[in-house]
C-alpha cells in the first residue's frame, strides 16, 4: 500500500539498524570461539609465527626444518644483537609479500609440529609474562564483545523507536484517512458497506495493521536476516557442515509448511465457530423474555451446547497440532546439533576445524532454526492482517457518489423556501426496483406538505432526496429555484432542518446537541437554543435536569429516553433556523399529547418555514396544507385531508385503520 511510501527512508534506516543488530548478534559466537580457540587453546597467542626467538631456539627450529625450506625461514628473521634474539621482519616487505611470507612460515612451523605450547614456552624463556598476555587477550575480546553488545543495544533502541513511531504513525494516518473518507460517504456507500462493517474496519482492522507493522519489521525482516547471515557464515566456513544445516533447514521448512496447510484453514473455521457462539448467546440474551415465555430454556441451551462443543473439538484439534509441532521442531534442532558435533568432531580430528569454530556453528544452527520458528508464529498472523488491509483498502478506494458541482450556482432569493420535485424517479444504487416513480409536485414557501403511505411506499425516500442524502435517478429536485445537484451540499443543507426517523444524539451536553449546527461562522446563541427547545417541547424536561442544558449526553444518547431524544433532535433542527424543515416520521416516538403540543408550537413559531412531514398517524397530518399519498413509489393522491377522504381510496384505508368513520367525521367537526 502507498501508506508505506512516506516511510521508505525510515524503513531503509530501520533495515540498516536491523542489519547492524544482526551483524552484532552473529559476531557474538565468533567472539566466544576466539576466547576458546585463541584465548585458551592458544594461550592468547594469535599467531604461531613468533615475534622473536632466542638465538638457541632459532637454530634448534631451523635444524628441524627440511633443507629446502631453511633459506626461506631464515630470510624472514634478522638477528638483533642487543637482545641476542632473532626478530620476525616479514612486515617490512609490504603487505602482499608479508602475507605470503607469513603463510609460508606458518606452514613450515606446522610441518615441523611447532605448537603454540612450544611458542608459549619460548616466550616464557624470553621473559614474557604469558599469564598476563593471555589475560589481556581474553579481557580484550570480552571488551570487544561488550562494545558489540552496546552497538546492538543502540541499534535496537533506535530501531524500536523508529518502528514504534512508524507503526503508530501509519495507524494514525490510516485512521484519519478512513475517518475522513467515511464522513464524506453518502448514504449509498453506507448502505453498501453497512455501518457496523465500517466501524470494524476503522477500529479493529486498523489495530491489526498497526500490530502487524510493528511485528513485521522485527520478525519478518530481522529474523530471516539473522538466519541468512548465519547460513552465510556456515557456508563460507565449512563445506561439510553446510549440507547438514541445509537438510535440517529444509526439513523444518517442510514441516512448518505441512502444519500450515493443515492448520491455517482451521483458524478461519474457529473464527466462524466463535462468531456462531456469539450469535447464539446474543440471540438468547436478546430474546430472553420470549425464550422464557415459551419455556424454551433447554432448547436454547442445546443450541449453545452444540456451538460450544464444535468449538471445543476444533480447538482441541488445533492445539494438538501445535502440541505436536513444538517438540518436533525442538527435536529437529537438537538432532541437528548432534550431527554437527559428530561431523565437526571428525573435522577437528582431521585438523580442518577448530573447536571454537565448531561451537560457533552450533550457535548459528540454533539461531537459524529459532528464527524459523519465530517466523512461523508471525505467519499465522499475516493472513488475518492481509484481510484487514484489503478491507481498509476497499474503503479508501471507494468514492462518494454525491459530489459538489465544479461551478456551484446560487439560490434564487425570490423563491425562498420553495421546493419542487419534477418527474422524480429513484432507485437505490445497485437495486433493480424503483422506489419512487415519476413524482411531480411543488411545496410552496411557508406551507406544510405531509407524506403518508404504507411502509415501503417511499415516504422517507422522497424527503431524503431533498438534502441530497441520495441523488435522484431521473428527474430533478429543485430547492429555491436550483437543482440540488447544482449547489454545494453545504449550502443546500444549511437551508434544511432535518429531523431523522431515529433520533440520533451525540455525546456531549444537551446544549451541544441542540447547537449542533453551529460551525464556522454560524453561531447558535443560548437564547436561540432555549427558544428551540421550548418549541420542541423539550424545555420542561431539560429544566428538570440537574445541570439543565449542560447535562451530559452519553454516547448515542443512551442516557435519555426515546421521547426526550426525539425532542432534542427536533430542537436541534429548529435552532438552525432553516428555511425548510424535513420531519422524517419524527413524531411517532412521542405520545399523542406531546405530539399535539409540539405541532401547535411549531405552527405558531416556525410558521414562516416550509415543512415536509413524513407521518404514520393521520392525526399528525390532518391539518397539512397538502397531503401526498404514496403507494408503491407512486403518488396516488394529493390534496387536503377532507378531499382525500373522498377521492383517494388508499388514504381512506389508512385513515380507517386508525380511526372509525364516526371519529373521522367527529375529528373534522371538532376541528371547526
Amino acid at each position: 500500500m502507498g501508506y508505506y511510501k512516506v516511510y521508505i527512508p525510515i524503513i531503509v534506516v530501520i533495515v540498516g539498524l536491523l542489519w547492524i543488530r544482526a551483524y552484532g548478534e552473529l559476531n557474538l559466537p565468533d567472539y566466544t570461539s576466539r576466547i576458546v580457540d585463541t584465548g585458551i587453546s592458544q594461550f592468547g597467542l594469535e599467531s604461531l609465527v613468533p615475534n622473536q626467538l632466542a638465538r638457541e631456539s632459532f637454530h634448534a627450529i631451523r635444524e628441524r626444518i627440511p633443507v629446502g625450506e631453511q633459506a626461506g625461514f631464515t630470510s624472514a628473521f634478522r638477528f638483533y644483537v642487543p637482545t641476542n634474539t632473532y626478530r620476525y621482519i616479514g612486515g617490512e616487505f609490504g603487505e602482499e609479500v608479508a602475507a605470503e611470507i607469513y603463510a609460508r612460515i606458518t606452514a613450515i612451523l606446522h610441518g615441523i609440529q611447532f605448537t603454540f605450547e612450544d611458542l608459549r614456552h619460548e616466550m616464557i624463556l624470553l621473559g614474557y609474562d604469558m599469564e598476563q598476555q593471555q589475560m589481556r587477550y581474553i579481557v580484550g575480546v570480552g571488551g570487544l564483545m561488550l562494545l558489540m553488545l552496546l552497538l546492538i543495544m543502540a541499534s535496537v533502541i533506535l530501531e524500536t523507536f523508529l518502528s514504534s513511531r512508524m507503526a503508530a504513525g501509519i495507524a494514525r494516518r490510516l485512521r484519519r484517512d478512513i475517518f475522513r473518507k467515511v464522513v464524506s460517504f453518502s448514504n449509498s456507500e453506507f448502505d453498501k458497506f453497512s455501518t457496523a462493517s465500517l466501524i470494524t474496519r476503522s477500529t479493529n482492522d486498523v489495530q491489526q495493521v498497526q500490530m502487524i507493522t510493528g511485528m513485521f519489521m522485527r520478525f519478518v525482516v530481522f529474523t530471516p536476516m539473522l538466519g541468512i547471515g548465519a547460513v552465510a557464515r556456515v557456508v563460507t566456513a565449512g563445506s561439510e557442515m553446510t549440507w547438514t544445516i541445509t537438510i535440517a533447514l529444509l526439513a523444518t521448512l517442510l514441516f512448518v509448511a505441512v502444519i500450515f496447510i493443515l492448520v491455517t484453514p482451521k483458524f478461519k473455521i474457529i473464527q466462524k465457530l466463535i462468531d456462531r457462539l456469539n450469535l447464539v448467546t446474543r440471540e438468547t440474551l436478546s430474546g430472553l423474555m420470549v425464550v422464557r415465555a415459551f419455556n424454551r430454556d433447554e432448547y436454547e441451551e442445546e443450541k449453545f451446547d452444540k456451538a460450544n462443543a464444535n468449538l471445543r473439538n476444533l480447538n482441541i484439534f488445533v492445539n494438538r497440532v501445535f502440541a505436536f509441532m513444538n517438540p518436533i521442531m525442538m527435536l529437529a534442532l537438537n538432532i541437528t546439533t548432534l550431527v554437527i558435533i559428530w561431523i565437526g568432531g571428525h573435522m577437528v580430528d582431521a585438523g580442518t576445524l577448530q573447536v571454537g569454530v565448531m561451537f560457533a556453528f552450533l550457535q548459528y544452527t540454533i539461531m537459524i532454526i529459532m528464527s524459523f520458528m519465530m517466523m512461523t508464529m508471525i505467519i499465522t498472523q499475516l493472513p488475518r492482517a492481509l484481510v484487514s488491509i484489503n478491507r481498509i483498502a476497499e474503503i479508501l478506494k471507494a468514492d462518494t457518489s454525491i459530489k459538489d458541482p465544479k461551478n456551484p450556482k446560487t439560490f434564487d432569493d425570490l423563491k425562498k423556501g420553495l421546493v419542487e420535485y419534477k418527474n422524480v424517479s429513484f432507485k437505490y444504487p445497485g437495486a433493480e426496483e424503483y422506489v419512487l416513480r415519476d413524482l411531480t409536485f411543488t411545496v410552496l414557501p411557508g406551507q406544510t406538505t405531509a407524506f403518508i403511505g404504507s411502509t415501503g411506499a417511499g415516504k422517507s425516500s422522497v424527503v431524503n432526496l431533498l438534502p441530497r442524502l441520495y441523488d435522484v435517478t431521473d428527474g430533478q429536485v429543485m430547492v429555491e429555484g436550483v437543482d440540488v445537484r447544482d449547489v454545494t451540499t453545504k449550502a443546500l443543507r444549511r437551508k434544511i432542518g432535518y429531523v431523522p426517523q431515529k433520533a440520533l444524539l451525540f455525546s456531549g451536553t444537551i446544549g451541544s446537541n441542540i447547537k449542533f449546527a453551529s460551525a464556522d461562522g454560524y453561531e447558535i446563541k443560548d437564547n436561540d437554543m432555549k427558544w428551540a427547545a421550548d418549541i420542541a417541547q423539550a424545555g420542561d424536561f431539560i429544566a428538570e435536569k440537574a445541570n439543565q442544558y449542560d447535562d451530559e449526553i452519553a454516547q448515542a444518547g443512551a442516557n435519555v429516553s426515546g421521547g426526550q431524544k426525539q425532542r432534542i433532535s427536533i430542537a436541534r433542527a429548529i435552532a438552525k433556523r432553516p428555511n425548510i424543515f424535513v420531519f422524517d416520521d419524527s413524531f411517532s416516538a412521542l405520545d399523542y399529547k406531546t405530539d399535539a403540543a409540539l405541532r401547535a408550537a411549531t405552527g405558531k413559531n416556525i410558521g414562516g418555514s416550509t415543512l415536509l412531514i413524513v407521518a404514520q398517524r393521520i392525526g399528525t397530518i390532518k391539518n397539512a396544507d397538502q397531503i401526498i399519498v404514496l403507494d408503491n413509489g407512486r403518488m396516488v393522491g394529493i390534496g387536503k385531508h377532507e378531499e382525500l377522504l373522498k377521492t383517494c381510496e388508499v388514504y381512506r384505508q389508512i385513515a380507517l385503520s386508525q380511526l372509525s368513520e364516526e371519529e373521522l367525521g367527529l375529528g373534522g367537526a371538532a376541528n371547526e
Partner: protein
Amino acid sequence: MSKPTNANNNGRPIGAPAQHGARPTSAMQQRRGPGGGFGGGGGPLGLGAPRQKPKDFKKTMKKLIKLMSPYRWLFLLCVIFAVGSTVFGIAAPVIMEGATGEIIRGFMEVQIGGFSIDFSIVLRVILILGAVYIVSALFMFLQSLIMADMTQKISYSLRKDMSAKISRLPLNYFDTKTHGEVLSRIVNDVDTVANSLNQSLTQIVTSVVTVVGILAVMFWISWQMTLVALVTVPMSAILVMIVIRFSQKHFRRQQEYVGHVNGQVEEIYGGHVVVKAFCAEDKSVGDFDNYNNTLYQSAWKAQFLSGIIWPAMSLIGNIGYVGVSVLGGVLVSRGSLRIENILTFIQYIRRFNMPIMQLGQISNMLQSTVAAAERVFEFLEQDELAPEADESSLIRDISVIRGSVSFSNVDFGYVPDTPIIKNFTTDVDAGKTIAIVGPTGGGKTTIVKLLMRFYELNGGSIEIDGINITNFTRADLRSMLAMVLQDTWLFNGTIMDNLRYGKLNATDVEVYAAADAARVDHFVRALPGGYDMELNEEATNISQGQKQLITIARAILKDPKILILDEATSSVDTRTEVLIQEAMVNLMRGRTSFIIAHRLSTIRGADAILVVRDGEIVEQGSHEALLAAGGYYKELYESQFV
C-alpha cells in the same frame, strides 16, 4: 451500549498460538493484556501493559483450583511430564559435555601432536543424547497435549454452566448488564482463563524447575561464574521495573484514547445522516483528529517502551555472558576449569534469563487470569430465581384452568425504593379482553411481565383462577400464557424452526394450520424455500410485518389460555396491519387477553380499559364510560384530533 462484543478482538484464535513455543520462543509467548477491546496490548511483546486486578485473589484462586480438581490426576501427570521434559532439557548439556570434552581433549592433543579423538566415546554420548532428546520431546508433546485438551474441556464446561446459568437468572440481572457484558464474560473471559491456565500453569512448573535446576548445575560447574551470572538478575529486574513504571502510564492513556477514537467512530458513523444534514463533517473530523493524535502519542511511546524491555534484558543477559566467557577463559588458563565447562555453562546462561523473566511475569499473568476467572465466577454465582413452591403447595394439574386473572395490591419496582407498580388491583374474567393504555414509562409492560412471573412481586399477589401464580411451576405458568411483543424476536434458523418454537412436538399439519390462522402461510409459500427458508441473523430477509405475523403464528401454535399482546405496529404497512389485526382476532378468540393497546379500534373493542399512569390504575372501565367520566382517558383520546 449493547454492541456485540466480538470475541477475540486481539485476533488470536482461541488457545492455539498461545501455547506456541512453550520454551523456545517465549518472546512471542507473552500474552497481551486482557484489557480487551481494540487496543489490547501494545508492542509485539505487550510487556508492561497494565493488567486487570482481581478483587479477591485468594477466594477466586480457591475456586479456580476447585474447578480444576476433577482433572487433578491429569494435571499431576502434566506436571510430571513438564518436570521430566525440563529436567532432561537441563541434563542434556551436561551429558553433551562428555562428547565435547572428548573432542576438545583430542583437539588439544592434536595441537601438541598427541593422540586423536576417541570417536567411540563421542558416538556413545551422541546416542544417549539422542534418546534423551526424543524422550524430552515426547514428554513435552504429551504435556501440551494433555494440557490443551484439559483446558479446552474446562472452558467448554465453564461455558456450558454459564449458558445454563442464563436460564436460571432472574431478568433483573439482565436489566443491569448489557448483552455485551454478559457475552464478553462467556466468550472472552472464559478464553482468557483457559489460555492462561494452559500457559501459566505449565510455565510456573517449568520455570521453577528450570531456574532451580540450572542454578544447581551452574554452581556445580563453577560457583565463581555462577555468581557473575547472577549479578545480572537484579540488574534486569530493576530495569524491567523502571521501564514498566514508565510504560504503564502510556498504556493506560492508549487504552483510554482507543476508547475515545472508537467511540467517536461509532457515534459519527451511526449518526452520519445527522452529521451530513447539519454540515458537521469538519467538526467531527476535528474532534476525531484530536483523539487520534493523542492516541498516536501514547501508542508509540507505549510500544517503544515495551519494545525495548526484551532487548534490554538480553543486553544485560549478554553482559553476564561476556563476564562468564572472560572469567571462564581465565579460570581455564589457570587450569581450574576445562574448556567444555565454559561451553556448557554458556548454554545454561542462555537459558537462564527466560524462565527468570517468566517467573517475573507469572504474578501478572495470575492476576489477569484470576481477574477473568472472577468475572466468570461472579456470573455463575449470581442469585438465581426464587425456588419453586414446595411440592405440597404446587398445583400441577393445569388442564382445568379457565384463565381468570386477578391482581391484588401488587407492588413492584425494578430497583428497590423506586416503585413502578403501586397497589395495583384488578380482576379479569376468563375470556375477556383487557386493553391497557397510558403514557410510555407508565408501567404497562411491567404489568404483563409480572403476570408472566419474569419478576417477583414486592408485595401483593397475582392469581389465576384464584390460585397464586407462585403455586404453579414457572414452566406450567408460562405454558398457560403466550406473549406477542412488539420486539419481534426470531432466531437464525428456518421459518419452520421458528414457528415450531411455540410447540416443539407440533406436527407439520398443526404448524401449517397455525400459520394459516396467522396469515403467514400465503406469504411464506411465496418466499424462496418456503417454510425451509433460512432467516438470517437479524431476520432482515423478511419484512417487519412478516416477522410480526410469524410471532403471532408461534403464539397460536402454543394454544395458550391467556394471551399478552403488545400492539405496536407503527412500523408496519397498512395492508400487513390489516392482516395482523385479523390474525390477532383469531388468536384472541376464546382466550383471556391483555393488550397493551395503541390502536383505538382495539381499545374501543376491549371489555375493559385500564388507564395506567405512574404505576397506578388511574381510570378503569369501558370506552364510553371513560369518555363520559371526562378524565385523563378523555384527554388522551382527544389529543389525537387536535
